[in-house]
């Protein structure tokens, strides 16, 4: 090939340029410390480095932020629960003292105050917060665990219990002992036989001072007035009977009574037969044959006839209402309370009665739901509604005395008594037996058929009351005054119930639970147990007060006044008996408290342990994350950073090559043949 000078020059130039490009790349690497300057230098490295950079960002987020936050949160939780454990330990010590030593009045007073103070301490510990967020309240970190001020807000809550929640309570009936004082002791007759103590089964609800359904007492008295009104009308119409309708004993009708009823029924039959158009023949036939039925079915028999009559447009003159029937012996209220054989023309009364019943139905009364043994479906039985509205539950107040709710329940095996003031559901023997028979079925893994649900209302909240939305399925009135309701924790009633677990991402696909929820350690029964103990102690203190008063009176009485002495002595004996009962109850409660607080302490310790184990798990994750972080950073560096030694050597080599190329070019371009001719 013919080589011209130009070719040599161009080749040289091109070689120098190639060297320059190489040198430029190396010096770029040297100064930027990166293997590549642009993605197209090496697409594989560029794309891999995107992924690695992302990994480093993510792992740094976990390592330097999320893990630290999770640690702080766990620490706050752990501290709060440790405090709680201390408080409960103190409570245990007090119960131990109460249960195992003889208490003077002043000791009792001190313990009482201490217990009340400890109770408040328990729940204020639960209001612990981390950076302005409450830590024990699940997802509701903006809501305190307990009410911070007293508040009026309506809640309807459903407690989910099991038969373990049914305990027994004893009630000491102190008759009128507490009313005795130095001025009236002579007129106060106390019968020692009236001092008694009963034990009944109860479910202690989470709250006391529950809703007493405002209008209940008013409606009840209206109902009584209506019954009264009807009863007097009947008695006026049937002077020979001479008894109150409410007292007819169907099982033991006297000959007179039977005749009276027969006459009355015949009167009705005549009226119905003469009615134009005549009444339903079936009704008349049944009335004629009333005696064919056994006495115990008479009530139902009449009730059925009443229904028919009331629904038969032809049977009654407009506006009037025929009531055939008798009042059952237990004075249970239902709409077959009535005249025997009378057309009661008190239109207003009938309408009032209906309105009264409707108002009872409108009261959102408490219910108990549970699964009866052998039932395949959950909650197929419901003891809902007030007895006054045809339900099962009797509302009684704790201050009622004749009989008191406890005595009433003890006497009636089918009773379910709701005492709003103390937040107790008392169960008659039969009801108790029925509830105790519930049990979880092995056949359905996801459902708890042994569950007993109690639904009730509460309006009034004291400072320190635990907020129900952290514990139960409930419907709460909104605080904005709109009258609308919010439903909380709907899932608790379903098998899909999930706890409000807050988890932080602390690694790739690694989450750690950072919160403990109130229902694991801050439980209602701590406070309720304290309430029971405090109340029992207060009862003893009150009786001791009366006893001291009576002893003072006794001192002041002249020895000659034997009548007064005898009266006071009789009263003292009664007080002594009552004190025996009350102290016995107190003792039992202290012992119960020992067991119960121990259980709570165990729960708290489990929570502390749980926090601790999560903390150590976090520590492990932290170490691992640190390693991962280092690994990714190394990988990233290996991928995109240059090996400085290697580049330095290459750069020196490149410089050498460049110099050589320059020298060659210089030589070649220096001379031509022309220089030599």
């Amino acid at each position, binding site marked *: 090939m013919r080589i011209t000078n130009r*070719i040599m020059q161009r080749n040289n130039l091109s070689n120098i340029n190639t060297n320059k490009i190489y040198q430029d790349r190396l010096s770029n690497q040297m100064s930027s410390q990166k293997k590549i300057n642009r993605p197209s230098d090496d*697409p594989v490295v560029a794309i891999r480095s995107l992924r690695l950079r992302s990994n480093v960002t993510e792992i740094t987020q976990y390592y330097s932020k999320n893990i630290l936050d999770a640690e702080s949160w766990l620490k706050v939780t752990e501290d709060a629960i440790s405090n709680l454990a201390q408080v409960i330990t103190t409570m245990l010590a007090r119960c131990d003292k109460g249960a195992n030593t003889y208490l003077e009045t002043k000791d009792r007073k001190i313990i009482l105050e201490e217990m009340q103070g400890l109770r408040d301490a328990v729940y204020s510990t639960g209001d612990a917060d981390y950076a302005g967020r409450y830590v024990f309240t699940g997802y509701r*970190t903006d809501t305190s665990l307990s009410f911070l001020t007293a508040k009026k807000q309506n809640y309807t809550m459903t407690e989910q219990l099991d038969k373990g929640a049914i305990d027994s309570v004893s009630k000491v009936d102190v008759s009128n002992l507490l009313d005795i004082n130095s001025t009236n002791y002579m007129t106060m007759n106390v019968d020692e036989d009236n001092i008694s103590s009963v034990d009944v089964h109860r479910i202690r609800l989470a709250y006391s001072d529950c809703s007493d359904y405002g209008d209940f007492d008013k409606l009840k008295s209206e109902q009584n007035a209506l019954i009264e009104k009807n009863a007097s009308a009947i008695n006026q119409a049937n002077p020979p009977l001479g008894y109150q309708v409410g007292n007819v004993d169907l099982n033991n009708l006297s000959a007179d009574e039977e005749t009276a009823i027969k006459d009355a029924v015949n009167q009705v039959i005549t009226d119905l037969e003469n009615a134009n158009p005549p009444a339903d023949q079936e009704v008349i036939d049944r009335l004629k044959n009333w005696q064919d039925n056994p006495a115990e079915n008479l009530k139902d028999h009449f009730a059925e006839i009443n229904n028919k009559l009331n629904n038969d447009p032809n049977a009654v003159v407009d506006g009037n209402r025929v009531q055939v029937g008798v009042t059952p012996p237990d004075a249970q209220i239902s709409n077959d309370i009535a005249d025997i054989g009378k057309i009661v023309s008190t239109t207003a009364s009938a309408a009032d009665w209906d309105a009264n019943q409707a108002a009872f139905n409108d009261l959102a009364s408490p219910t108990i739901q549970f699964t009866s043994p052998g039932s395949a479906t959950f909650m197929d039985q419901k003891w809902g509604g007030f007895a006054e509205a045809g339900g099962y539950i009797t509302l009684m107040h704790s201050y009622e005395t004749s009989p008191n709710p406890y005595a009433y329940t003890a006497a009636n095996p089918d009773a379910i008594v709701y005492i709003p003031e103390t937040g107790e559901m008392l169960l008659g023997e039969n009801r108790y037996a029925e509830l105790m028979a519930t049990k979880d079925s092995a056949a359905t893994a996801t459902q708890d058929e042994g569950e007993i649900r109690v639904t009730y209302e509460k309006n009034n909240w004291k400072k320190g009351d635990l907020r129900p939305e952290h514990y139960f399925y409930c419907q709460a009135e909104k605080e904005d005054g709109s009258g609308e309701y919010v439903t909380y924790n709907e899932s608790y009633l379903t098998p899909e119930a999930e706890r409000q677990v807050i988890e932080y991402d602390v690694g790739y696909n690694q989450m750690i639970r950072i919160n403990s929820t109130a229902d694991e350690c801050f439980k209602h029964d701590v406070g309720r147990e304290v309430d029971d103990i405090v109340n029992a102690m207060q009862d003893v203190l009150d009786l001791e007060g009366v006893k001291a008063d009576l002893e003072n009176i006794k001192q002041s009485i002249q020895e000659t006044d034997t009548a007064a002495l005898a009266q006071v002595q009789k009263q003292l004996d009664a007080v002594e008996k009552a004190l025996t009962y009350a102290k016995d109850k107190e003792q039992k409660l202290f012992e119960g408290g020992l067991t119960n607080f121990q259980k709570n302490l165990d729960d708290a310790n489990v929570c502390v342990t749980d926090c601790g184990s999560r903390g150590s798990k976090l520590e492990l994750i932290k170490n691992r994350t640190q390693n991962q972080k280092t690994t990714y950073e190394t990988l990233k560096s290996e991928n995109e950073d240059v090996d400085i030694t290697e580049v330095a050597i290459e750069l020196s080599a490149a410089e050498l090559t460049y110099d050589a190329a320059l020298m060659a070019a210089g030589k070649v371009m220096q001379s*031509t043949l022309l220089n030599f*001719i």
Partner: protein
Amino acid sequence: MPSQFFGLNIAYTGLLASNAALNTTSNNIANVQTEGYSRQQVTQQAANALRVFQTYGCAGAGVETLAIERIRDEFYDFRYWNNNGKVGEYGQKQYYMKQIEAYFDDNGKNAGFKTVFDQLMITGLQEWMKHPDDTSFKKQFVGYAESLTEYFNGLAGNLEKLQKDVNEEIKVTVDDINSIASEIATLNKQINTIEMTGSMKANELRDRRELLLDRLSEYVDVEVKETAVADTNNMDRDTGGSRFIVKIAGGQVLVDGDNYNELECVSRTSDQKVNQTDIDGLYDVYWVNGSKFNLYNAAMGGALKGLVDLRDGNNGESFSGIVTETGAVEVDKQNPDGTTSKVKHDTVTVEVGKHYLTDLNKCNLSDSGGMINLGNKEFYYDSWTYSVSYDANGEPVYSYTFTLSDSELNKSKLTADRVGKTATVGTSIDYQGVPYYMAQMNEWIRTFSQKFNDILGGGYSGDVPGIDLFAGDKMVTEGQYIFDKAYRYDQFSPEMYNEQLEAAIENQFKADREAAKKALMDQGKTEAEAEAEIVTQEPALRQAAEAKVKPNFKLSVTVGKNVTDNDNYYLMTAKNFNISSTVENDPSRLANKKKAEDGVAQDDLLQDIKDLATDKNSMSFRGSSASEFLQCILGDVALNTERAETFYSSFKDIANTIDLQRISISGVDEDEEAVNLVRFQNGYNLASKMIQTLTEIYDKLILETGV
């Protein structure tokens, strides 16, 4: 016996020849650095001998100088030009791809997609997850989301700018082609003028012409043909003239002898827009005589091809389908006086099957009217409707119905014979240019926004239902699009189809029933009679209603000029991608939980958002997860850049090699010329010496011999 003075004559020819050679050498040396210069050489031959009728035969008559010729091998020129097209094409590609690469790059120094997205979906989201209801963290998250939208806005702006630059460069290139064409035509004329006068060669002019072709071949592929001009009267005569033809872009004649065709760039009007993402005023190239210069010719090469690929490259994903139906539709027309009147517009329905058309998120069809080609006839369209229906097997059938423009734009009428023809919009260009990257960004943005907004919309903040985070700004008027459920084309499904079909049939049935009843009453029947009769006809009416409604029933959204409602995600692009102004003003509206009654620290919704970033099942973009967007795109960009660079440097090397081979033949070598100089000087000296010698001989002969 020749003349005694014959020798002097011979010596004279020697002097002449040496002189010519010396001059040529001088010329060569003078042009040693001239670009495109071919070395010249004197061709000479021994002059015809004189027959002297002597026993020793003929007597040499000296030397004859034939011509001064350049030394050049055209074979290398052709090779050089062929190769130079590739150099031009990849030169442009590597230049612009480097820019695109810089726009997309994310190297930790400039914040690219990955940095911005990780900020949003790792830093922002993780902090938010720890404080689900805290407005300050929501605000931070919204701030990061804004960085994401701004990133895309900026990227779209950069790519638009780049498309504009490329477009301008196309114009510059076309202008340069014109000027080269005119110069070549002039040179052709001059060359012929010189060469037709005799056997002379216009060496310098030819060199210049080839130099121009070197330049032209970089812009566009060239094909050169030179044929001798024959004398029709005497075919054997060499006229010396030649016809020089230059064809470009796959055989289109640019220069023919001393004539040349001029090209011109014409901006597309807004009615001729091809891609949704195209900027206004892209150039189409025409011959000045009016016929179209096919920019998309497969045989085209050179810088022009590189530029067109970059400007219009759609990875072969242009609209195409089969026309299934033509029809007409009544459209409201805005009159200048503010009133509206009904005008009939033709419609054409095109069934499509390509994945980038069946999924509207991937589509890049103009949203403001354009041109559609129906079996080689072009029509303007105002708007199009994307429709889905389901066949008996529940398989989807996708079609686009174009509403053609009025007769002002469409001079020829749409005829039914277009059915069955192929419909295309734009050209399929198998290169990943600006429209491709834009379409990719749009697809990601639309899919991501749909999924993201759906998650938020299904949740609550406090007890307030969540609202969209990502929105699209309206470009012409103020405000943002509100994407109504009815236009959620991404949620079209057989269930939705059946449900709406039932409703439509029911409506039709009710209307028909009412009409039939009215007809009966008009015949004099009482209402009761009419009602009784209608009841008996009900099954038939229902069947008729179904037959009327069902064949044409489709789920659809419409996009285009004069479309007022139909706000749908297709209108969301990288350019107008933004944060919902409501959320921007009040970040607390961001939902964080799925149930209103759950507590404030509930973050179940945020878990879904987290999955959206990294879980392919939540969102899939080109078979990868949302966060891998840049991996996919940067893969394309980096590979295209790398390829362009590799090709560029290898074609450049080849060009260099060919050029060296050319130089090897045509180049002036200084040593060689030095030798020549000595050689020709010696020749000249000898010839002079000869004359001197003869002078002495004549001196002897005339003055001394026989005197």
